[in-house]
């Protein structure tokens, strides 16, 4: 069979047609609505406890519709970054986690300065470090209002603990692990006794321990500081993998969620926001959980801000909604439904919080546990590249856990990956 076109040309033609690799970027348009009606989009991840509040706000403001858009944690932040540079497409309100807030406050010109809208009057209500975290370096622009703070504790399964012959009362359990070394010992004992894994994943030890350190991945001059805090946290995480107490389940994935119901692990470091996830994921374990203190003292893991990107069409309406959301009444409501701890210390004394016990967690006095942790906290500077660096180091820990990386070589690998991610 002969054709007049040379074969190479035909191959090239096919290559040209099919071969152009199109990297599609997903765009979403926000509509302003008609007839004076305003639709506010709000992007966040996990559960911010907004479902009921949305209904309530819409009932009070009949011209406002609120579109809740919950996505994956890293993806939401990356998406916001892309839209800021592209100049359009950002939501009216974007939630930003503390792990990414420094990256965004260094682009303060792309956000509405909430001080211009009169947010300055709330400064005294906030934990001072929380207020400063979203304040631009020159102090002139406040890009976000804080919602929750991490406040660490340790959730544990009372039924699994008693089956392993461990105490179940929360004070006794807290006394089991004054330090992380003791914590690992208890874990080894549990695994030896029951043959089951103690923790869900070593990365979920790494993050809270890192949160307790003076200096995290970066110092205030944006220099990578792996030898300090990260090394301490990394060593514990790798040790946990080495002694075989980790179930090696990737957080927020199907098998992890299944682990909550199947008892694949017995403890889980719990920032306040984790409570909502446990309740939603494993409603059947109601009453089997309890909350003890975390080894090693105060620390934070996560905590968010609500920002209003400048490119939004309804910045005034958006600010009004944000302002409404951070009022004590709503903050307390969120705390009660999903457990997110407000970042306004005055509320901790409010009986609605101070006396609140969580029935799901065996009536644990969460209104006492979490505020104590949040107040005894030294805030850590989280660099601009904190997000990607964290993902890179978590991946190294995961490789140790699945046996493809020797723990002896892991630290060198972690440094290499962190340097690459921070570039």
């Amino acid at each position: 069979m002969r054709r007049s076109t040379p074969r190479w040309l035909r191959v090239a033609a096919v290559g040209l047609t099919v071969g152009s690799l199109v990297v599609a970027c997903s765009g979403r348009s926000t509509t302003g609505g008609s007839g004076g009606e305003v639709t506010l989009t709000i992007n966040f991840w996990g559960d911010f406890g907004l479902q009921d509040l949305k209904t309530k706000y819409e009932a009070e403001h009949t011209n406002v519709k609120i579109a809740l858009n919950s996505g994956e944690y890293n993806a939401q932040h990356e998406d916001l970054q892309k839209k800021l540079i592209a100049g359009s497409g950002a939501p009216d309100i974007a939630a930003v986690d503390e792990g990414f807030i420094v990256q965004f406050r260094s682009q303060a010109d792309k956000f509405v300065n909430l001080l211009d809208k009169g947010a300055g009057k709330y400064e005294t209500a906030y934990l001072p470090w929380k207020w400063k975290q979203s304040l631009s370096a020159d102090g002139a622009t406040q890009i976000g209002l804080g919602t929750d703070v991490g406040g660490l504790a340790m959730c544990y399964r009372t039924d699994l603990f008693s089956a392993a012959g461990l105490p179940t009362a929360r004070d006794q359990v807290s006394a089991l692990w004054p330090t992380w070394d003791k914590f690992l010992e208890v874990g080894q004992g549990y695994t030896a006794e029951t043959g089951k894994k103690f923790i869900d994943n070593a990365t979920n030890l790494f993050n809270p321990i890192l949160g307790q350190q003076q200096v995290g991945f970066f110092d205030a001059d944006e220099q990578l500081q792996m030898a300090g805090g990260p090394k301490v946290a990394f060593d514990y995480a790798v040790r946990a993998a080495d002694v075989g107490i980790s179930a090696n389940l990737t957080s927020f994935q199907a098998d992890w969620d299944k682990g909550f119901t199947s008892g694949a692990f017995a403890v889980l470091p719990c920032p306040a926001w984790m409570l909502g996830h446990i309740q939603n994921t494993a409603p059947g374990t109601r009453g089997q959980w309890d909350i003890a203190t975390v080894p090693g003292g105060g620390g934070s893991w996560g905590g968010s801000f609500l920002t209003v990107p400048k490119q939004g069409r309804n910045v005034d309406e958006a600010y009004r909604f944000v302002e409404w959301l951070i009022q004590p009444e709503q903050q307390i409501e969120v705390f009660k439904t999903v457990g997110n701890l407000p970042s306004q210390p005055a509320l901790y004394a409010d009986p609605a919080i101070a006396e609140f016990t969580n029935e799901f967690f065996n009536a644990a006095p969460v209104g006492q546990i979490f505020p104590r942790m949040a107040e005894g906290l030294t805030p850590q500077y989280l660099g601009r590249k904190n997000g990607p660096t964290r993902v890179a180091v978590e991946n190294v820990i995961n490789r140790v856990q699945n046996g493809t990386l020797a723990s002896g070589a892991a630290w060198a690998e972690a440094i290499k990956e962190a340097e690459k991610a921070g570039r």
Partner: protein
Amino acid sequence: MRYVPYLLIAPFFLLFLVFGLFPMIFNGVVALRHWRLDDPELTGWAGTENFRRLLTDGDFGNALYNTFGIFLLSTVPQLLLALVIASMLNRRLRAQTWWRVGALLPYITPITASTLVFNVFFSRDFGMANWALGLLGIGTETPIDWRADKLHSWIAIATMVNWKWIGYNALLYLAAMQSIPRDVYEASALDGAGPWRQLWRITVPMIRPVVIFTVVLSTIGGLQLFTEPMLFDLNAQTARGGAGGEWQTVAQLVYKVGWKDLNLGYAAAMSWALFLIILVVAALNTLLTNRISGGRR
């Protein structure tokens, strides 16, 4: 009247110019520039810097290695099995249409849907793949972690690719086989050729153009593999292809560098490099197939 044919084929070429050629050329321009979404200050011409960086980038090397590994594990069995299935379908069978339609079913299943199912299939703790292997006595002590090392993850992904494309290629082969006259087979049978020999000595040479076509198509598809490796990750959002990039393909790396690391210039350079690699490999494969199936050129 002379211009009517040109007029009629013009829509395709106009669309191709707008959505095919222009993006590709623009991509080439971007590849020669600095363009970082997280650092708007860093713009301007980079010259060949992005391409030079590729040569020493361990991630790119790793991705290229993975892509070719998965490519070999998927394309070769895929086309061989498709040939065998096609020659089976070419015989007289009961419920012939049923078999032929059945072969095409995987192809019409949306790729994301099937990948999500395979994701559960290859799950470490509760997966059917491990359960089936367990019946054979493999991995009963420690179940295979399909996402932990290169070989296992490659096999898993190649399985998904094969599953989807075998039937499609088989039907292409079948269509070509239908045009082979029956008497050729009858004559060869008289000369004592078995079915296997008939397949290699008669069928394959006689459907050579289609074989070459499928080889080129699967080369292009295989080297651009994206959806399967992307969704095979437990947290697809990281676009890492495993904790250590065990199965990260080039297309996936392009996505990660562009939209995760927000380094568009470098990502564009990568996709251009991939484009050139595909051209070379497709050309080589065509030559090779041509030789094997008895062509002279």
